[in-house]
């Protein structure tokens, strides 16, 4: 579905992505890695939010480089950005109506069934929600676009453990809707429970890719690439 080939992104002198290659198909893929390794930049590059200097991004056989973000979104890519980025002045209901497509598989009713908390808060503004509610809203907003691929940038960041469990359940259900998932996570548990394949990103490159089960079982790998102490998080 998504094919990234030798992708480079530079911000002035800084060489952020140094030749990333990655492919996402039917099965969810997770990218893990420490802070500052270029994970968010990769998400933004796929969405067209930052300019790429070399390499290619193809989605469904179509080249995305240089396409404006709104066209990429219309081709079926949705991004749940890091830090949620809900609109402070729109209510929950307005957020959903902004993107909802009548009659689509994910519609407003289904969102309210899946996230009952959002239904209770439908009249509240985006700035009046808790972190977990904002995250649910950001995910719901992406799902309502009924994308072919949903990219999630650190969805579990700052969430209470019980909310994280809910999040995992929602994300595990997405492939059943025929949605591809590219999940960027620092939380190893979320990454490995949602995705069967895990790629590890180090200084702007994919340093290793492996089945999730192998990373979970190998603490030496975890220590080397992620700096996680024994026992993980």
């Amino acid at each position: 579905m998504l094919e990234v080939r030798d992708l480079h992104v530079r911000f002035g002198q800084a060489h952020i992505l140094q030749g990333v290659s990655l492919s996402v198909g039917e099965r969810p893929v997770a990218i893990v890695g420490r802070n500052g390794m270029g994970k968010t930049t990769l998400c933004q590059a796929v969405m067209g939010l930052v300019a790429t200097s070399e390499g290619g991004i193809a989605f469904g056989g179509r080249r995305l480089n240089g396409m404006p973000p709104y066209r990429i979104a219309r081709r079926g890519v949705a991004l749940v950005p890091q830090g949620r980025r809900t609109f402070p002045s729109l209510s929950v209901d307005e957020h959903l109506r902004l993107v909802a497509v009548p009659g689509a598989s994910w519609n407003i009713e289904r969102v309210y069934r899946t996230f009952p908390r959002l239904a209770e808060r439908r009249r509240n503004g985006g700035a009046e929600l808790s972190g977990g509610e904002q995250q649910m809203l950001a995910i719901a907003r992406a799902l309502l676009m009924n994308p072919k691929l949903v990219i999630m940038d650190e969805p579990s960041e700052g969430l209470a453990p019980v909310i994280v469990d809910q999040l995992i359940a929602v994300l595990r259900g997405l492939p059943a809707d025929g949605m591809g998932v590219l999940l960027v996570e620092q939380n190893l548990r979320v990454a490995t429970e949602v995705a069967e394949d895990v790629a590890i990103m180090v200084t702007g490159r994919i340093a290793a890719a492996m089945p999730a089960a192998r990373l979970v079982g190998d603490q030496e790998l975890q220590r080397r690439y992620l700096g996680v102490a024994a026992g993980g998080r």
Partner: protein
Amino acid sequence: MHSRTVTWSLLSALLLLALPWLLPQVMPAGQAQFWIANILGRAIVFGIIAMSLTFLATYGGFISLAQMMVAGVAGYTLAVFAEGAVPRIVGGLGYGAAIPLGLLAATAMGLLVGAISMRTRDIYLLMITLALAMGVFRFIETNIAWFNGYEGIRNVVGPSVLGMDFRNTFVFYHVALGTAALLYIGIIYLVRTPFGLVLQGIRDNPRRVAALGYSVALHRTAAFGVAGFIAGCGGVLSTIYNIGISPGTIGLGGTVNVLIMSVIGGLGHPIGAFIGSLIFTVFDTFAATIYDRDRFNTLIGLVFLAIVLVSPDGAIGIGVRLRRLLAASRR
């Protein structure tokens, strides 16, 4: 919308409709007529133009200084094509055709302003819209063949519909009021549609709106087109009100006046435009008698300063604060 808001809006609408009959009960007939025509009628007409700016500022976050110029484009189109205008430049069209043509021209000019200023925001948007306004103003002022230059075009008396003449103070007042109410309701409706939500999303975070699949440029330009239509309605009414149009109307003075009305009324809600234009018109009319004939601008400046200092969100902000104070004291 809360039912109480609806009740209040209906009550104020009824009160405004009945004013031409209510005012003569409390003041001499001549004075009542003066208030209806020179204060309220004028305030409504300028309020419409100011509302086109408030619409852009409140929901899109775009401060455009071109709205008076866009209104002028409608007024000049009307004056150029309407039969009976002096001097006759094109003429030949009845008001039934010339007015829609004026509105069309203003909408097109609004779209053009939006397209030209598409990539600018904040102070740069302000400067580019000001530059466009001044460019059109100078072009009209110096062009004799099409716009009769400095003197402008006179005798745009307005239509007479079903035996009701626009020169009649009460007819004009009610037409202006009806137009303002329709545009106001239209805006309130529009901002709840997906288009309006996208606009508010752009104000909060344009990059996010783009990532959701909406072209920011297209929606911005369309918003300027809508604002152009609104300003055009105000421009047509003001041209008929003044029985003509001259370049002075759309000069720097007029441009700044519209900005002042919007700001003292408050940029938080479209109704602020009308509150601001009423305050402005009252002071503009009476400042010479209250203060000093040569220094009435000083008084308007002081009022502007006072409102902006007391309440950065204008007269609506004062109202909101008073209500909160009352609610707090009741507890």
